[in-house]
């Protein structure tokens, strides 16, 4: 359940080594079966991504004549998507929305997580429970009321309307995850700061914040991905193509009868790239945050 750190010391599988030395026929079969399983797994896992990237570079992807390797490698799909397809605008919109979301939800989540991790107060457990439960609310169920609410605020078709909604969505998980990071900072460090005469605010800036920074980065990446990938609200709130985010903008390349797969895949590649980079950077923290971090008291 908790992080795999203590087990890592003997992770070099002592079980396999004695098997390998004698290389009995049975051991060789097991090894071959394992190699086959790994190969099959990698093909299954990576193929869709490979197909997307290869389609993006294939001049003939849209005509259905694509083979396993791009037959005519080209940048043409990317050029079309960015120039004529207006994908540059969508990318810009998505970056703005995602960065504002990260900034706002990072600040709010940090303050709230300090409160629940460091202070004992009435209703603390009740608030933690509420945050946990609220994470489970299907956002799809809130489209209708939020649509009405954002419309009343005159924020339909504006990027700010999306930002407000995304901040709310990434907040519960952010608080939940940062709570673990704040709790991990030894209280003695804080006390030392007080003894040196620091005020609470000074202690927060100079002691707590630098130590929680890695957690803040992980949380920010998570809210970035949330905002970047979100589809249903972007679809509902925006009806002017100038304000589309990338997830919705992709639909532009679907024709009435024929789908321009080369363009769709070029756009998809542009969307996926930043997410993959960020994701791989924080995946360890993300998966442990979902499970282990949530369990720690």
């Amino acid at each position, binding site marked *: 359940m908790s992080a795999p750190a203590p087990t890592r010391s003997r992770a070099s*599988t002592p079980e396999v080594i004695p098997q390998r030395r004698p290389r009995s026929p049975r051991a060789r079969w097991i090894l071959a079966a394992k190699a086959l399983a*790994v190969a099959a797994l990698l093909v299954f896992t990576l193929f869709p991504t490979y197909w997307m990237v290869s389609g993006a570079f294939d001049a003939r992807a849209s005509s259905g004549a694509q083979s396993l390797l791009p037959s005519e490698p080209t940048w043409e799909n990317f050029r079309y998507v960015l120039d004529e397809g207006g994908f540059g605008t969508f990318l810009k919109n998505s970056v703005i929305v995602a960065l504002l979301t990260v900034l706002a939800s990072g600040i709010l989540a940090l303050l709230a997580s300090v409160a629940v991790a460091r202070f004992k107060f009435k209703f603390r457990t009740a608030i933690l429970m509420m945050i946990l439960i609220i994470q489970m609310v*299907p956002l799809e169920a*809130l489209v209708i009321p939020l649509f009405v609410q954002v419309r009343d605020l005159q924020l339909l078709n504006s990027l700010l309307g999306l930002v407000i909604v995304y901040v709310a969505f990434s907040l519960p998980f952010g608080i939940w995850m940062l709570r673990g990071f704040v709790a991990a900072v030894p209280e003695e460090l804080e006390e030392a700061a007080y003894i040196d005469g620091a005020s609470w605010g000074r202690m927060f800036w100079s002691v707590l914040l630098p130590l929680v920074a890695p957690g803040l980065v992980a949380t920010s990446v998570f809210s970035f991905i949330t905002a970047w990938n979100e*589809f249903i609200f972007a679809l509902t709130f925006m009806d002017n193509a100038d304000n589309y985010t990338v997830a919705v903008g992709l639909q532009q390349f679907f024709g009435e009868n024929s789908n321009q797969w080369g363009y769709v895949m070029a756009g998809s590649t542009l969307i*996926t790239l930043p997410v993959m980079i960020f994701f791989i950077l924080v995946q360890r923290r993300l998966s*442990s945050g979902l499970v282990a971090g949530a369990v720690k008291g």
Partner: protein
Amino acid sequence: MSAPPTDLAPPRNTRGGVSPRTKRKLTMSTARPWLLLAPALLVLAVLLLWPLLRVVLFSLQDYGLREIVSGRSNYIGFDNYAEIFADPMLWQVVLPNTVGFAIVAVGGTVVFGTLVALLLASLSRGWRTVVSSCIMVAWAMPAVTGTYVWIWLFDADRGLINGILLGTGIIDDPQNWFTDRWSFYAIVVLNIVHHGFPFVAITVLAGLLGVSKEMIEAATVDGAGAFRRFFQIIFPTLRPVFAVVIILSTIWDFKVFAQIYLMPGGSGSNRSVLNLGVWSYVESFAQNRYGLGSAIAVLLTLLLLVVSVLYVRTLFKEEK
């Protein structure tokens, strides 16, 4: 918010407050957590709790285009719910699509993810790192773009799958995989399992590495086969891990939206593939029946609430 200032706050809260102004310090330190929480709670209340209440209110109204423009309410009691429950769509199409799909997808994701975790655990450390990093790629793929790739693969005219099947002579004419409810959902399951198994694999792997090697060796010496070792040692030890993984996957799979909505026919034109989430959306934003759509959304929320309560109870049982 304004806690009694004269109260004897526990010593933890005073935080170096051993000053002559103890009384004021105490007030400050009781107020501080609330000050820190206030902005976040405000956002959550306005943007999650209030809409949650509002969707229930909408579901009790005949809320159409007129009401949405004027903002006036139009209560009709439980008529929307009566209409939904009387609609054969719910029982024959939407509920089976939602629940049946969730069961198959969760089962597929968890079983496949566990098998991958077992495979990873048996690899040497170097290979384990390489393979688990590759798996991450599938997890990192955004739902929208991943769905488009699957649509393309199964596209009737230009898809790879049809190309292969035609080329090898298994089928004679291009097959449209998206019109039939079963093949439609088979593709959705493939999409969801592909996207969801890495989380299961990585989480279960972390647990597997913590299972005592001695116990497994002892069982092997005693002649227990791989199956018995898994079900009698590994599974019971990892029970809490499996509980969390299964419940989280269930929550995610109950509310899939983009993966269905984006598929050909998935946005309402093929009514036999609707699930609760898409049905609610289509009734609201395509038919302008926001009241009915809200009632469906409430139904989905209640279903998920049951699963969530299970989740929270598992987590807190863990903590003890």
